[in-house]
């Protein structure tokens, strides 16, 4: 579906966003990110039959949600991501590894939103989604890095 370059690029984008989450000065504002997601939605509307723009839209929506898990717009943005992933799943030629990665990321965001309740609830889903993504495509950097980030996060949360 998406080329290896765009996957690596996506992985870089995600981790740039995640890494900067603790650096308030460099953190993109919620409005900036929402505008970016809105622009991707417009691009997606220009090419409704292409998977690439949908992938980017879902990914950036999840990026916003993981950075602003309790913003007023987050539930809508997550709903958009879920809807987009659902649309991708129905399209011919959708890369199953990418779909698993996005699904894992979606559950991961749910855990970030409410670790106490959703940690135990979605932990297995996140792990299985990333494992399946890597099984289907061992070169899926985004899945590997998200999995690593997730395990680190869980370790920190449970060692507190």
């Amino acid at each position: 579906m998406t080329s290896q370059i765009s996957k690596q690029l996506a992985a870089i984008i995600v981790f740039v966003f995640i890494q900067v989450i603790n650096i308030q000065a460099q953190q993109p504002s919620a409005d900036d990110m929402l505008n970016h997601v809105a622009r991707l939605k417009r691009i997606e509307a220009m090419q409704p039959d292409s998977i690439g723009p949908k992938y980017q839209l879902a990914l950036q929506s999840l990026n916003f949600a993981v950075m602003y898990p309790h913003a007023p717009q987050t539930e809508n943005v997550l709903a958009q991501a879920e809807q987009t992933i659902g649309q991708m799943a129905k399209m011919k030629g959708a890369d199953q590894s990418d779909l698993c990665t996005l699904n894992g990321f979606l559950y991961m965001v749910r855990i970030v939103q409410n670790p106490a309740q959703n940690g135990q609830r979605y932990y297995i889903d996140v792990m299985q989604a990333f494992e399946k993504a890597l099984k289907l495509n061992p070169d899926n950097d985004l899945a590997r890095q998200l999995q690593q980030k997730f395990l680190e996060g869980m370790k920190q949360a449970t060692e507190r």
Partner: protein
Amino acid sequence: MKHRMTHIVLLLLAVCNMTAQTIISGTVTDGKERLVGANVFVLGTIDGCLTDSLGRFSFSTSQMGETTLKVTFIGYDDFTLVADASQLHDLSIRMNERASTIDEVVVSASTFSFGKSEHFKTMDALDVVMAGNSCGDIVAALQTLPGTQTVGEDGKLYVRGGESEECQTFINGMHVLVPYSTNTENTAVRGRFSPFLFKGINFSLGGYSGEYGQALSSVLPMETADMATSDKYGVSASLVDWNIGGTKAFTTSSLSFNAALTSMGLYDRLFSQRQDFTRPYRKLSGEAQYKKEYGNTGVLKSYVGYDLTSVGLHTDERNLSLKEHNFYANVTYKASMGRGLTFFTGIANSSVFGDIDNAVTSGDHYHNFRNEVHLKTEIRKVCSETLKLSTGVEDYIRSSHLSFAPYRYHLDYNILAAHADAQWRVFPHVFLNVSSRVECMRNDWLLLPRTTLSYIPNKSVQFSFVAGRYSQMAKDDYLAQGLNSLSQSTADHLILSMQYKSKATLLRIEPYWKEYHHLPFMEHAVCQPHGYGTSKGVDVFLEDHSLMRNLTTTVSYSYNDSKRLYLDYTEIRTPDYASRHNLRLTAKYAIGKTIVGLTDSYTSGRVFPHGTTPYYNSVDVNLTYLLSPKVIVYTSLNNVLGRTNIFRYDSAGSPVTASRDRFFYIGIFVSLKNNKAYDISNF
């Protein structure tokens, strides 16, 4: 001069450029309120913006002439306007809320769903394990829900005034003949399936669709977990059970196994009890699962489980000895065939051998063998956003043999059934489910129409009205005593369901009414289908997450007024298993690596010929602690206050109580595979 010309040209170009930009502006509302964050843009370009906090938008575009303006907002239909770009200013755009498609809507009337069979889950296997006094038993955990009644002397599911046999269990759509483990009389049994087997548990308290039959009151369909993606191995140990299991994942398939030994021997030595067991309760269980995915369209799931249970009890001057072999296996295949078409087929076999020495008097021997083969095929089709159809056929082939000298019987019969089901979005917020089920047994045909009408104005509120007829063949013992005169019992359900759900609160109120016909009734020592009865009441369920961070509380209350003429009753009366009021209060609080649970269960007295029992009350506490990412410790204490609850009175008028007032459980669950922390499931 040259510079002046340049400035003039640049100025002209700038002016031309300015005139080429058109400002598009306006407001977006849903007719009542302004929509904040709607995406307004010119289709085919990235020119656009999000609406501000007042629902306003304004942006410039280089588009000229006919322009398509599009507005999108989650939960609303896309808005499209085609007009000349110059006219797209000061617009007042009204968006319409998007009606759920038939595939998206989840009618929750009379059903509690756990796990993740469809959307995001609300409760999973760990919640089941940690529910009040469940000790990892699905059946006990479900008894914290409204509509269920506490019947302490057998621990089974009794729903809305119905007998325990009226609730039937299905795994991946296939029937389970005996879903409980066995034990001696007046001792609570447990469900025989581990909660970790399942990714989805749907407990329907009535009004279920035509897919499910042979259940008068309720159904418990459970869906096993998906194919594992990696290897995992785990062990667990407690005072009463020891468990080892694991999963080997292959590229497109996975194989799981689990072995468990439950023994009360150690516990009986450590803690005193009222009953005199000559041989402690022991259960040896083995389970295996094989799952295979065929591309992205087909899934094969198979399950096989075997339990061997034995126990010896000294009672009434005799040594009762019980042994049971319980075997269950099923294979299902589900395939998506494109164009919204799904095909499902399955086969299941249940075989239960029960033997009791000295069952009633010294020297007697009771032997019972029950077998069921369940065959099922179904086709589902999503025809459009407003219509979904399904149809299927199934066959229950049963045989039963009992010998208890001098009495004996042998039964062979089958029940053939077909069903058709239509789910239709009549109006944007009105959904109708109409189904019909036909059953045939010994040339007796039965038509069972069912319907659910739901009004779902938004994601927070649901109103449903459910009406339907349900049937079930009487237990084999009654069937044998019926001398071929017994027909299927039927029950008519009428249910009104009202639900409010917000981010932090779920409130459900369900009044219901049931009328039973053709219940087995003893007339001149022959079981006849002349029994009848009614059951009416209301269930209330409130779940809240808003009182304190990380605190979940639930209130579950059931009122039931049930009466029936049934079996050997001399007159129409309240069945002795039914209690009028059932109240359960639960609280679960997470602090770091610890989760603490508290449950209080109250049940009003039950009516027996020898009198009414005192009320039942039990306060239970439990604690789950994450010792390390791979080790979880779970402990619980049931009936903390030590109240001696009287469950019932026997035929001599003596009170029947639990073998011990309190029950203490402590277990440790260890995940052996490195990357599988926090996962105590072996499947």
